[in-house]
């Protein structure tokens, strides 16, 4: 059939032209609860669209892993994240694959990792369970998001979800807010990292956005 053929052709053409955003540039930091208002004011002034005010979000994220034992070697673990919006009822779910941090030169200002996002219907959870994924953990994130050009800044509080408790009685896991500055871009656009670093400079000393080395975090636990 020619129709799927042309779809595949256009997809591979898009991949070749490098227009699909499949990399995420990321900087993270945190700010204590008592200073988050100041940070929000500052972000409101620095970011686009001052008149419309900060956009709030309330999301629930589930993290699945798909384990495939490859015989003698180490089992391959594929982490997948499903995120749904709790405040907007009909928004599609987002399925996300986030890869490992790219080991590049140490001078790169941001974390670069491959990330693939897609929108899907609400049946994704059943689908993944049928595939064999197991739910690793889940959490609720609630906060505000801003944008400046291509950059997205989110200030959110993470809440623990106990399986059978209703949504309102969740408890926060810490007394601080997680601040993330991210850009989704096709691979090879490293100049955006510099822009992100300059923007992060403007938020100091309220919050220090920097690249986190996840391997060391893992070993610290």
């Amino acid at each position, binding site marked *: 059939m020619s129709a799927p053929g042309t779809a595949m052709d256009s997809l591979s053409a898009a991949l070749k032209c490098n227009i699909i*955003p499949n990399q995420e540039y990321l900087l993270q930091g945190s700010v204590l609860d008592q200073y988050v208002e100041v940070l929000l004011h500052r972000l409101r002034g620095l970011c*686009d*669209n001052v008149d*419309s005010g900060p*956009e709030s*979000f309330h*999301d629930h*994220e589930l993290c699945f892993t798909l384990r495939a034992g490859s015989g003698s070697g180490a089992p391959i673990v594929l982490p997948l*994240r499903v*995120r*749904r*919006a709790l*405040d*907007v009822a009909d*928004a*599609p*779910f*987002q399925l*996300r694959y986030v890869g490992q941090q790219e080991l590049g030169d140490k001078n790169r200002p941001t974390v670069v990792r491959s990330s693939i*996002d*897609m*929108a*899907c*219907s609400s049946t994704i959870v059943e689908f993944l369970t049928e595939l064999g994924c197991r739910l690793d953990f889940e959490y609720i*994130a609630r906060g505000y*998001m801003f*944008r400046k050009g*291509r950059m*997205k800044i*989110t200030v*959110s509080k993470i809440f623990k979800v106990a399986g059978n408790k209703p949504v309102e009685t969740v408890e926060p896991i810490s007394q601080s807010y997680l601040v993330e500055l991210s850009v*989704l871009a096709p691979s090879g656009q490293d100049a955006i990292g510099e822009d992100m670093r300059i923007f992060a400079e403007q938020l100091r000393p309220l919050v220090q956005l920097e690249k986190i080395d996840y391997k060391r975090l893992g070993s610290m636990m």
Partner: protein
Amino acid sequence: MVQIYARKKALAGAANVLLAGAEKLKTSQNEAVRNRTTLDFHIELLRLRQNWRLKKVSNTIIGDLSYRTAGSKYLQTGTFEVTKAEDDEKASSPPSSPLPSGPTPAKQNSALRVSIPSELQGVAYIEVLCQKDHEDLCSVNINLLGSGPPPPPTQTCIGSKKLEAAQNVLFCKELFNQLAKEAVQLQAPIPHMVVGNQIMATVLPGIQLIIGLCHSTTADKKQQHPSPSKSEHDHVLEHSLHQLLREVHHKNTHHPFPHPATGPLGPSKKRMFAGPMAADRYELLEMTKTDTLLEQIVKQAQHFIMRMRTEYVLDTIAKEVKDPLISSHWNTLNSPTQSCVKINISTHGYDAVCRTPLVIHVGEKSLKCICRDGKVMNMSYEPQELRDLIFCHINQHQILAVQALAKTMGWQALGNSNHLGDDSTGTVEPLGNASSCLMSSPTGDRIIAVRCEPHTGIQVSVAHSPRTDFFPSRLVTERKWEHLGGQFRDVRLDKMEGRNFLHKMELLMASLTSNS
């Protein structure tokens, strides 16, 4: 004791220092009050900076009055330069051409001089006219821009006013540029014409919408509209055009945020659904299509004309037809492309007996009428169609009202017909169909027949049930055949007493009801 003296001396020394400083400040302030200019430049610059974007580039202060930060993608720059008023002899060429120092208004005593690029000087506005070929349709009596007395110029006002005017000129240029581009690209059934500073678009057959860019570079504010035969332009449509362009700007900057938060920035809500809802190529293409500015303003103009026509038709009918009263109620809330009017046909004094409601939705090029029985009639832009429809409904109302009245009077409706065609009951009407009904009295001894026609009006006839003129003949011998009913005799309604048709019918029925 010594300590007290020492302290006293120290305090005196400190006091002297403070007093000397205060003296100095006082003298410097007095001097500043005397020569105002230097101080005022900075204060005025500060005030200007509160409203306009300024920045210092090497030795000059450059500003930007374009809508670029608000989302405009127009290529013409809006940079202006701010200089001190004393150094106006300097003709050192900055990037934006300075004002010629000739027409310096004498009343200016501001410390700032604002230099605007030459193509943005003066005052501009977009003129919108609805013309019927070569006559004028709408005349709006609102003061033209700038024809009122100008407010007294204060010191900080002058630079700001010039900048506002220049910004308006830039906005009007962008708007006209966009409309002209669309007029050339769009393919309408009757092509749009762009001639110089005017765009002519056909709204309805015979009616044109003319959009012109009026840019007057003279400072003469008393200049009236050049041709007195043209009516003043439509401010509502001009405002709509401004709003439409501002909406375009707004969409360029305010992209929707993704929910959940990890989604990509940029795609609209519909696009986000395209994946999970399996949108095909056709749907995706449809998502990208939007109405252009010109199409939108043409639609608004079409609706405006339709509304005016409908109002005219309804008002004319209400003035002409007095027997059933036609009252129309227009909805307060409507959109630029759709309005709604509710029409009530009722007879004076008999509102509770029978009322015919109609709802008419006025669209851009068509009317949709919802009749009392739920039927939907779609009409085109010809006003005659609406007129015919209303007259048909008036007829139907009369017949229904008579039947309802008969019920209250105790009379029985024997039958009715809404469509009497071309048979022995009469000739075919040029407009609509005649309708009729038959009623009999409570005792059955009288029959009334009513026939209602759109053009010739109403005819009423009465018959006696046992014939008064029955004589047994050789064919019809028995007495019982006298009950078949007699001849119908016409009633002269115009000679009858009664305010309106229903009143006359009520009196007629009352007089024909016998007591036995």
